[in-house]
């Protein structure tokens, strides 16, 4: 619990987000004995990131001009910067993508006297600074935080959510229609796609322990694309989902396509993940993804 001065300096910078990542981090309290916590306004009264920070975690998306300023300043003072959570990777639930009407009404409502101005979108960190390690998840589990801080190079992360889900994929249970995201009674132990749910666990990065799908909630893709889908065009991911649903169900292709189009995708392809990643951003290699 004590933080002797010779331990490496550890800082947590929160941009525009919900504090969920911080709350998750507080539940993996082992870091407390390995680091000297020098900056984390949620728990410590400090208003400045000091020099020579060994590890800087940045949570939240870039939403205001002040966020850009703080992010650049933090980057310059840290040896290693870890982008934490879906917002830091993609802008998260707060990004607008192609929802122009929502963007307009938001921008109109977001100006105050002598207050930071809002940018036209919530941006990922690597649009502004170099990122050394990406830790996706909404939020990442405490276990993933520990892995990121201890030994990310040798981490063994499940390639997709299905690997950790434990629900069985059946050949003879082929729904004829989409059930939705979540409605009605979910049968235990059987793959959610076999039950007609729009689950994107087949193309979503594992490592979360399948926290949602095991109790019966479709995966919404908060951990983002699995390695084969990194830096790919969104069409590539859609194709993959189409293939999965065609192989496992008897749902007509028109219905699958309609489901995979807006607004059903507003949640998991438009808002939560970086599937629709901006192609002008730096390539995210699998070595840098946790």
């Amino acid at each position, binding site marked *: 619990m004590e933080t002797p001065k010779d331990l490496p300096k550890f800082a947590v910078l929160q941009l*525009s987000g919900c504090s969920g990542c911080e709350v998750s981090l507080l539940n993996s309290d082992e870091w407390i004995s390995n680091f000297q916590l020098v900056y984390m306004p949620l728990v410590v009264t400090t208003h400045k990131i000091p020099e020579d920070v060994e590890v800087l975690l940045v949570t939240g998306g870039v939403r205001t001009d002040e966020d850009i300023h703080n992010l650049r300043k933090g980057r310059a003072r840290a040896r290693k910067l870890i982008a934490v959570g879906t917002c830091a990777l993609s802008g998260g639930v707060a990004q607008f993508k192609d929802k122009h009407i929502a963007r307009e009404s938001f921008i109109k409502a977001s100006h105050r006297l002598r207050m930071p101005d809002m940018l036209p979108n919530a941006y990922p960190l690597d649009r502004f600074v170099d990122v050394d390690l990406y830790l996706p998840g909404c939020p990442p589990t405490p276990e993933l935080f520990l892995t990121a801080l201890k030994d990310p190079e040798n981490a063994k992360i499940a390639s997709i959510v299905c690997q950790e889900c434990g629900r069985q994929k059946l050949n003879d249970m082929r729904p004829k229609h989409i059930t939705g995201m979540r409605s009605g009674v979910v049968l235990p132990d059987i793959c959610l796609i076999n039950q007609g749910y729009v689950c994107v666990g087949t193309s979503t990065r594992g490592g979360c322990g399948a926290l949602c799908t095991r109790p019966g*909630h479709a995966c919404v893709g908060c951990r983002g694309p699995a390695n084969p889908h990194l830096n790919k065009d969104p069409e590539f991911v859609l194709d993959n989902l189409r293939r999965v649903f065609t192989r496992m169900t008897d749902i007509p292709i028109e219905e699958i396509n309609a489901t995979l189009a807006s607004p059903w995708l507003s949640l998991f392809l438009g*808002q939560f993940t970086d599937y629709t990643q901006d192609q002008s951003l730096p390539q995210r290699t699998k070595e840098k993804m946790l």
Partner: protein
Amino acid sequence: MTTITYPLSRIEGHARVVIDVHDNEVFRADFQAMEIRGFGHYVRGVPAEQITVIVPRICGVCSTAHQVASVKALEDTFGITPPPLALDIREVLLLGQLIQNQATSLFIFTMPDRANASSLFELSQSETGKAREFSLAQNALRIRKIGTDLISLAGGQFIHPIKTVIGGVTSGITREKADRMIQTIQELLPVATELVDIYWEMSMEMGDRIGSWGDDEPTHYLASTEANNFRLNSQRLRVMQPDGTEALSFDPHDFEAYLQVAESEYSYAGVSSYMGQIVRANSLARINLTESLGTPRADTYLKRFVQTFGKPAHAIMFFDLCRGIELVYALEKAQQMLECDLEHGDTEVGYTPKDGTGFGLVEAPRGPLIHRYEVENGLIKSADFVIPTVHNMLAIRRALMVAAKRYVSPEGISAELERAVGRVVRAFDPCIACATK
């Protein structure tokens, strides 16, 4: 005119306090939220049934309350009532949220103020003995973790939970898991009461040292728990008048007749008032509006509180003490509920999606939270979130003014003002992410 800006820490989100002083007179004390989240904009056009996954992201600290309020708003729209077992499991979930939140506010956010330390982890550098402080911090985190574990147990995961669904919950709680949780609570309940006692003692010492418990002007109070049935999965809002008499109660459908929410020019958070007057929500409001909590240890603390400070009690530092009472209550109540059978019976009812307007109310740690949705063609046409922190905005401003006046004198502006500002804001435990939804 001098304008002093105090950045804030140990609260959720980005906020600051701005105080204008001229000629040793305080003109303005403002509490400003510095970002806007904008969920009301993002969720337009989203399929109604998906909104329950999106809106917990309003806040990672109180995601549980948002998830339950969201599900309740859609159940109201669709006209369905979940089975009693599901309601009990949701209550366990909300108790977990209350434990996690009150433990965070008590120990991580405000205990350092009582020891003049900058954080819970640096208490050891303050005046009191190192060994004692070490176990304090460790025990505080253990108590907080009970709340987290309860949310995981009843909600599937401890941030942005998923087990509460339209119509009920996805599954019950097995005897084995319930027993394991009961064992942990039994083991740690004495630790929690000891921490609450220490906190109480430190608060009394701080009150003596400062010579004030902060703004104590009689005020209206707002809560949705009942006087003798402290249920967080609540149904109606209640208001207490400044003199302690109960004014009225109202259904969440009628909230606009009683609570007026307005935008603020200088802050991204709105400001609400009760019939044009200052109102307070959160722990002190609930405790003022409670006759009995119904669990033995918590009722002993409640009695002690009322005997010592009266009823209604008004000074803002009482918010902190009331969080301690609620922490003990939530631990005891969770244990009581887990002792019942939460495994067998219907956990959900089926439903047919319908268009219409629905309201969902829960008593969140910071006060009554209402989600209001308008559904058209299965999509969200508009969504409104009535946020507890916003109810407290006027009360926070007034309390800051009281503090500022105390520390600005003809001799100048006291250095103590910065600490006072932190204590005032933290007493209300504001949540900026929620307040700027």
